[in-house]
């Protein structure tokens, strides 16, 4: 909403009554925010529905059956036994039913009972997949959420800092972050592990991260393992934010109001603050995409650094051919992403009134 429209509304309010003004404005904001929530809720539910439909269809449509790992094993045991095992497993997963029937069962089980099937991997055989996945979710989120917030503020600050006045030391800092962002993050994990774990012994080796429990010693042990993945995610992602912020800042720096205020003799720090505020707003739209990317990065990183999150569970399920576990982790990751995107959109609506009232994108 621009200032002109604001004036119009204010005039109308003045005409009707003074007392009504505040309540009416609150009502407009409240209603439009509610509308935004509803619109986003419908959209993200649709996205989630399409994603799980794809997750259901892909294993059944790609060449090779969901049970091909077991088929591969069938060479090592008696072929008759193998055929019986495969038939039993197909009955267990309902793979012998027609596709539409399987789909209905899948939807019913997921939405009504929250059931994602049972694991067929040996140490956790016949346990519900959801019970195995649920304790892993906080492990992934405790890396992604702090990393997203830290990189957003630090990255934008660095970018704006460099963009406002491009001196040599500032450029050195900027390009250092840029090179760290350009390095493939999984490989950068090797480098940092080598420096901080092998040589400096700042952090313990990663293979020994314990499972979570409400015990102070265990929590402290987890925290010791926690810093390196977090630092890594932060270092790798600052570069991406600061490139955007830098070019936004260069754009703002050349715009009329800054040049005019410079001529008027405003304080430099004040000007930088104005330019920073204006250059940071477009960056908010990048949060969604960055959140999705970070989830993807964390999945691979968890495997490389033995961090017991969703990603390492998913990748170990690939190697063990645990079909229900692959599906389950994938669906939960999509759920996390959809909820995260929904919250980010809402926060964007809170920050920028134009999104609330304007309606369209």
């Amino acid at each position, binding site marked *: 909403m621009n200032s002109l429209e604001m004036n119009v509304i204010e005039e109308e309010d003045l005409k009707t009554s003074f007392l009504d003004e505040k309540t009416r404005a609150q009502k407009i904001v409240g209603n439009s925010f509610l509308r935004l929530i509803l619109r986003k809720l419908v959209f993200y539910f649709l*996205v989630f529905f399409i*994603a799980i439909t794809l997750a259901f269809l892909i294993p059944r449509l790609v060449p090779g059956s969901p049970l091909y790992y077991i088929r591969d094993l069938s060479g090592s045991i008696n072929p008759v036994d193998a055929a019986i095992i495969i038939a039993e497993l197909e009955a267990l997963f309902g793979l012998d039913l027609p596709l539409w029937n399987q789909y209905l069962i899948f939807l019913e089980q997921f939405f009504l009972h929250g059931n994602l099937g049972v694991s067929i991997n040996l140490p956790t055989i016949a346990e519900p997949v959801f019970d195995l996945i649920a304790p892993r979710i906080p492990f992934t989120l405790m890396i992604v959420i702090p990393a997203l917030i830290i990189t957003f503020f630090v990255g934008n600050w660095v970018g704006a800092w460099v963009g406002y006045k491009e001196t040599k030391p500032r450029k050195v800092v900027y390009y250092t972050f840029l090179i760290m962002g350009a390095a493939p993050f*999984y490989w950068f994990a090797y480098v940092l592990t080598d420096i901080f774990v092998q040589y400096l012994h700042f952090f313990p080796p990663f293979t020994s991260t314990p499972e979570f429990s409400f015990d102070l010693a265990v929590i402290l042990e987890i925290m010791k393992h926690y810093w390196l993945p977090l630092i890594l995610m932060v270092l790798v992602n600052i570069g991406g934010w600061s490139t955007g912020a830098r070019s936004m800042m260069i754009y703002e720096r050349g715009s009329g109001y800054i040049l005019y205020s410079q001529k008027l003799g405003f304080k430099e720090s004040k000007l930088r603050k104005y330019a920073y505020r204006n250059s940071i707003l477009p960056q908010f739209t990048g949060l969604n995409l960055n959140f999705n990317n970070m989830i993807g990065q964390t*999945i691979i990183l968890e495997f490389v650094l033995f961090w017991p999150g969703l990603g390492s569970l*998913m990748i170990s399920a690939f190697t063990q051919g645990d079909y229900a576990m692959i599906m389950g982790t994938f669906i939960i990751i999509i759920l996390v992403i959809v909820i995260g995107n929904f919250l980010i959109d809402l926060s964007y609506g809170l920050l920028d009134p134009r999104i609330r009232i304007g309606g369209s994108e």
Partner: protein
Amino acid sequence: MATETTLISKSLEKGEKSPIINILSKLWGTIKRRYKKQFILIMGLLVFVLILEILTALPGMTDPKYILFDGVKYHSEYPPSWKYWLGTNSTSQDVALLILHGTKNSLYFGIGCALISTAVALVVGIFGPFIGGVWDTASSFITNIAMVFPQIPFILFISSLMATRSWVTVMLIIGLFSWPWAARAIRSQVLTLRERNFIKVSKMSALGNMKIAFSEIIPNVLSYVILVFSISFGIGIITEAGISMLGLGDSSGNFVTLGYVLWYHQTEYILNQNFYHIWLSPGIVLTLIFLIFYVIQSSFIMTFNPRTRENM
């Protein structure tokens, strides 16, 4: 240069439609004039690929997975020396040779990925908003939904469910899941172009939609397309290396990429031993590739945006 412009102006005077060749040759002239820096960079990259091609075609260097065995013992886990510049890995393969082949294959892979994702982004980003109506809503809706789809989990999910994966399938999977942001960037550009007068004039003069899209819209968003292409190039290479490192790349093992070299490391050492020559070099090469593309991208951005062009 001069002859090209006169050709076009002559044909314009006669009222002839200027053939695509003339437009292309004019474009070529502009590229050589305005994008001299980028032209040199891209030519440098092509020469680099050519050198890699020649090196890997030399006798004795065609098979990257050749196992070094002199009849007495295997040359496994050698540190870097004059004979093996980057040492050998535990299966007695020359790491330098693996990296030569890996770099070449990774670059080709990146081109494939970039072509696929740019093509999809072009179709969704240009034709949707340009044709308008239902197509516009549909393309915007598809792009918005695909933006939320997590790229890496989807790629991992699909490739883990396939029993055999050739590098073409991996390329298709990566390409088909990395277009949404590009489509959105192109789309927003097309939406502003659509309201310009010259598009309205061409619509009024009853030119076909397709014709306008190809002769008016695409040349105007070409700068974005080039940018999108170079970004997806880098992303394709990095993503492929990431999933190959997890052992989910090409399953036949004949397509050696930089991720494949890292996978050897991941499966066999996991940082318990100090084989820097095996894991440092692929990462450095990947970083350099990404930086080269970053330089190309940022120089394009500088040239496209007049304000940054002045300030830089």
